[in-house]
C-alpha cells in the first residue's frame, strides 16, 4: 500500500499533448470495417494529418476522404460539400460503409449532417438505382473536436455503428462482441487467439487488425479501388445483437457496449485492458461469465509461460525500479498494474484525459505498488518531463512522442502504444493477454539490461 498523489497539469496551456481530437478515433474505428471508408466533413488537414499518423505508425495505406471545406462553406454551410462528397465517394469507391465524421468546423457551422446524408442517399438512389445505393451504409459519427479526445471519438464511432446497423436479435450466434480500443493489430489477434483457445469467436467492433497490417500480395489484393484485407463486415455488426455478451477492453468503449445491453439485452463488461496476469485473468473470467466456457489447458499453459518468465526475470533485473508511464489511459491503467506485478514502481502515471475512471483505477494500483504513485490526469508530456527532471526514474514507458524528451533526460524509453514510428514492428507484437505480457517483460528486461547492465557485462553472465 503506497501513497497516491493526484497532480493537476497546473496550466491552461497544453504542451506536447498526449491526446488528439475526436475525429482521429472515429477514422481509426471506421478503417476497421470491411470496405469501410471515413469521410471527414471538415478541412483537408483534418484527414491528411490523421493519414500521416496512421501511415507512419502502421506503415500501411490509410484511405480517408474529406469534404474539403473552405471559406465559402464557412459562410454558406457545407451542404453541397457533404452531399457531393458522399455521392462521389459512393460511386467511385463503392464502399460497404461510409463513416461521416464531423469536425470542429462542421459542428460550429451547424450543418444538418443527418439531413444532408438523407439527401445524398436519395439522390444516389435516383442516379445509380436503389439497390446499389443501399449497398453503401451511411453512418453519422458526431465528433466535435473541442469536446473530449480521440479515445472518445473511437467510442462514439463504435456506438454509431452499433446504433445504426445492429438489427433486432433473432437467435444466439454464440459469439462475443469485443470492443478492443485503439490497440494494435497484434493485440486484436491475441484477443482472438485467447477466445479461440476458449472455444468461442469474436465480433470485433471494429477489427483494425488486418486493415492495418495487411499482406503484400498483388495477385489477391483488391484494387481500383484498393481495399485492405479484413475488417469487420457490416453483417457482423448487424448480428452483434445476437451475441452472448460484449466486452469493451477500454473504458471509452462503454457507450456502444451499454447501448447493446440496453436495447438488446446483450450483457456488457467494461474493462480492464488485459495487460499482465491479473487483468488477463479478469478478462478470461469475464469471457467465462458471458459464455460459460472455461479457460482451456492450452490457455493455462500460456499463462504458465508468463508466470515462468516473471519468476525468472523480475526479481533479478526489475525489482524496485521506478518507471513513468504515459499515453492512452486504458493502456496506462493496464501497464501500471502490470509493472507492479513485475516488481517495479509506477512512480508517475500520466495521461491526457480527465476521465474519473483513470484516477479510480490508479487508487487501486497504489494498493499494489511498492512505492508512491503520482497520478497525472488531464496532463501532458511537458508536465511529465518537468517532474522527471526533478525526480528521475529508471525507465519511461510510452509512445514515440517522448523520444526527444527521454533522450535529453538520458532515461531509456520502452515503446508501447500509438504512435510508434521510430522503431519497427511494434504494431504487430501484442502486449495484451498472457503472450503479450511475456513480450512486454522481454522488451522491458532487454532495455534494462542494455542500459543498466551492459557496462558491468559480467553481471549478465548466467
Amino acid at each position: 500500500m503506497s501513497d497516491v498523489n493526484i497532480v493537476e497539469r497546473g496550466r491552461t496551456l497544453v504542451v506536447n499533448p498526449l491526446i488528439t481530437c475526436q475525429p482521429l478515433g472515429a477514422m481509426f474505428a471506421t478503417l476497421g470495417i470491411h470496405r469501410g471508408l471515413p469521410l471527414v466533413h471538415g478541412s483537408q488537414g483534418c484527414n491528411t494529418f490523421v493519414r500521416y499518423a496512421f501511415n507512419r505508425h502502421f506503415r500501411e495505406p490509410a484511405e480517408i476522404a474529406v469534404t474539403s471545406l473552405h471559406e465559402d462553406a464557412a459562410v454558406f454551410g457545407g451542404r453541397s460539400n457533404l452531399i457531393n462528397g458522399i455521392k462521389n465517394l459512393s460511386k467511385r469507391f463503392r464502399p460497404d460503409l461510409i463513416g461521416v465524421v464531423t469536425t470542429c468546423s462542421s459542428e460550429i457551422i451547424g450543418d444538418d449532417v443527418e439531413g444532408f446524408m438523407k439527401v445524398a442517399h436519395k439522390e444516389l438512389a435516383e442516379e445509380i438505382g436503389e439497390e446499389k445505393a443501399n449497398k453503401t451504409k451511411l453512418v453519422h459519427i458526431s465528433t466535435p473536436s473541442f469536446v473530449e479526445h480521440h479515445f472518445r471519438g473511437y467510442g462514439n464511432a463504435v456506438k454509431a455503428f452499433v446504433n445504426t446497423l445492429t438489427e433486432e436479435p433473432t437467435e444466439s450466434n454464440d459469439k462475443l462482441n469485443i470492443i478492443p480500443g485503439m490497440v494494435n493489430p497484434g493485440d486484436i489477434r491475441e484477443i482472438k487467439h485467447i477466445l479461440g483457445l476458449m472455444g468461442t469467436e469474436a465480433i470485433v467492433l471494429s477489427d483494425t487488425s488486418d486493415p492495418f497490417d495487411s499482406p503484400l500480395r498483388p495477385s489477391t489484393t483488391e484494387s481500383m479501388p484498393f481495399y485492405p484485407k479484413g475488417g469487420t463486415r457490416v453483417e457482423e455488426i448487424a448480428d452483434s445483437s445476437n451475441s452472448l455478451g460484449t466486452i469493451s477492453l477500454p473504458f471509452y468503449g462503454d457507450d456502444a457496449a451499454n447501448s447493446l445491453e440496453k436495447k438488446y439485452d446483450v450483457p456488457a463488461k467494461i474493462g480492464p485492458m488485459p495487460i499482465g496476469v491479473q487483468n488477463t485473468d479478469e478478462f478470461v473470467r469475464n469471457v467465462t461469465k458471458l459464455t460459460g466456457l472455461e479457460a482451456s489447458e492450452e490457455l493455462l499453459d500460456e499463462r504458465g509461460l508468463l508466470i515462468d518468465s516473471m519468476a525468472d526475470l523480475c526479481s533479478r533485473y526489475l525489482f524496485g525500479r521506478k518507471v513513468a508511464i504515459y499515453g492512452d489511459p486504458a493502456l496506462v491503467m493496464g501497464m501500471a498494474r502490470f509493472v507492479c506485478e513485475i516488481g517495479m514502481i509506477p512512480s508517475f502515471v500520466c495521461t491526457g484525459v480527465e476521465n474519473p475512471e483513470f484516477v479510480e483505477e490508479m487508487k487501486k494500483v497504489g494498493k499494489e505498488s511498492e512505492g508512491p504513485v503520482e497520478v497525472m490526469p488531464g496532463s501532458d508530456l511537458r508536465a511529465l518531463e518537468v517532474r522527471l527532471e526533478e525526480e528521475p526514474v529508471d525507465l519511461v514507458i510510452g509512445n514515440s512522442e517522448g523520444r526527444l524528451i527521454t533522450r535529453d533526460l538520458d532515461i531509456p524509453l520502452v515503446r508501447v502504444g500509438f504512435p510508434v514510428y521510430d522503431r519497427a514492428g511494434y504494431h504487430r507484437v501484442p502486449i495484451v493477454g498472457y503472450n503479450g505480457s511475456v513480450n512486454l517483460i522481454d522488451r522491458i528486461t532487454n532495455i534494462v539490461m542494455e542500459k543498466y547492465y551492459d557496462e558491468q557485462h559480467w553481471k549478465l553472465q548466467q
Partner: protein
Amino acid sequence: MPFDLFEVDKEIPERKKHIYIKDSKDPKEHIPACNTTTVPGCMTERGCAFAGAKGVITGAIKDALHVVHSPVGCTAYAYGTKRYPTTPDMPNGDKFPIDNFNLKYITGTDIRESDVVFGGMDKLKKCILEANKEFPEANAIYTYATCTTGLIGDDIDAVSREVAEEIGKDVIAINAPGFAGPSQSKGHQVANDVLFESLVGTKEPPRTTEYDVNLIGEYNIDGDLWVLREYFDEMGINILSTFSGDCCHDEIGWMHRAKLSLVRCQRSSNYIAKLLKERYDIPYIKVDFFGIRYPTENLKALGEYFGKEEEAEKVIESRMKWIRPELDKLKEKLQGKKVWVFSGGPKNWHLPEPLEEELGMDVVAVSTMFEHEDGYEKIKERVGENTVIIDDPNSLEAEEIIEKYKPDIVLSGVKEKYLAHKMGVPCILIHSYENGPYIGFEGFLNLAKDMYAAIYNPVWKLMEFEQEIEEEISAENHARRRGPS
C-alpha cells in the same frame, strides 16, 4: 486531345482539365487546371493552410515557440511532422540552450466547447503568457488561427500585439486557418506575408559582408541546407538569413541587409523574395540545386554574380570528381526505369530532367498537390513528350497511373508510399526523404542510391509463392511482373 479523363474519373468529369498529356505542339497555355478547390470526397492527398504555414515554413525556425490556438487536435498534429533538424548555433556565436527546440515542443490553447461559445481570446492571452513562462529561452512566440478559432472570429492579431508589448518579445500572429484557400499553398503565402510585414527591417545583423545572401525557401529537410551551406562557405558567400531552415527568429528581421536573395523553393516562398525586391530593392534569382546540371549552372551563376567564378568551379569539381563515377555506376542499373514523380510542388520540375539526363530514367508521370500556373509551365517545359501531368491527383487516379503507366518506382510522400507497395511498386519519399539529404551533388547521389535500393530490393522478385520452380516457368513469371528482370 491534350487533356485526359481517367477511367476512374467518369463520375467526376471536372477532373479532366487537371490531367494534361504533354504535346509540345500545344500552345503554352495548355497546362493542367490548378490551385482550385478539390472535388469533395475524391480522396485527395492535399492538406490544409495551417499545415502550409506551421508545417512548412515556421516549424523550421530553431528558437521560436508555437502556440496553436485550437482544440487539442491541431496542436497534436503540429508536433514534429516534418524532418527539419536544427543546430544550436546562433548568428552571434551563442548556443541556443535547448537542442532541437523546434522539433521537441509544441504548445496550444486546448480550446473547449465553452471557449467556442464564449470566445477564446482571453484563453489565448493566458496561454501565450504561460508559454513564455514555460520556455523563457524562446526568442519569439508564433501563434496560429485554426478552423475553430477562425470560425468563432477570435482576433489573434490584437491579442498577439497586446502580449508582445507585455512580455517584450515578438509575438507573431499567423492567420491561416485550415479552411483558407484550396491547399497548403495558401498557408505558405500567409506565413510569407506576415513574417515580411512584421519582421523584415526590424533587426540588424551582427556583421555584414559584401557577399551576403538570403537563402529563401530552403527548410533544411534532412540536412539539405547544410549541403548548400558548405558550398557557399567554400565559395566565400555568406548566408545572412535562411528562410527558414535552421534559422533563428532574428535572421528574418535582417533579411533586408542582404545583397541578393536566392529563391530555392519557388512555390512556398516566392512571395517574400518579391516583397524584398519591392520594398528594399534586393534583387532575387531563382535557383535550382537538384540534380547535377542545375547546381552546376546555378553555382556558376552565383560565382559570376559575386566574382567568385573560380571558387564555384572548385566546389563543383571537388564533388563531381568522385560523384560522377558513382553516378555512372548507378546509371547502368537505373537506365530505362520508369518513374512517377509526385511532389508537393516544385520537385516536379526539379527532378525530371536530372533523372532522365543523369540516370537515363524515363519520367512517365508527374503530379503535384498544390503547384500553380507558373510551376506547371516549367514542368511542361522540362518533361518529355507524352508525359502525363496531373494536378492534385486523388488516390484512385494514383492507382490508374500505376496501372496505365507502369512506373518501376514512385517518388512521393508517406501517404502514397504504402499504397504503391500494395500494388507491387517500390516507392521512396521525396517530401521528407529516405536517406537524405537529396539536394546538391551529394544529395542527388543519395537519391539515386535510394532509388536503386528500392527498385533492386530483392523483395520485388519474391512477390508470390510459386508451386512450380522449373526455371522457364519462374523466368516467365518474373517477366510478367513489374520490377527488374
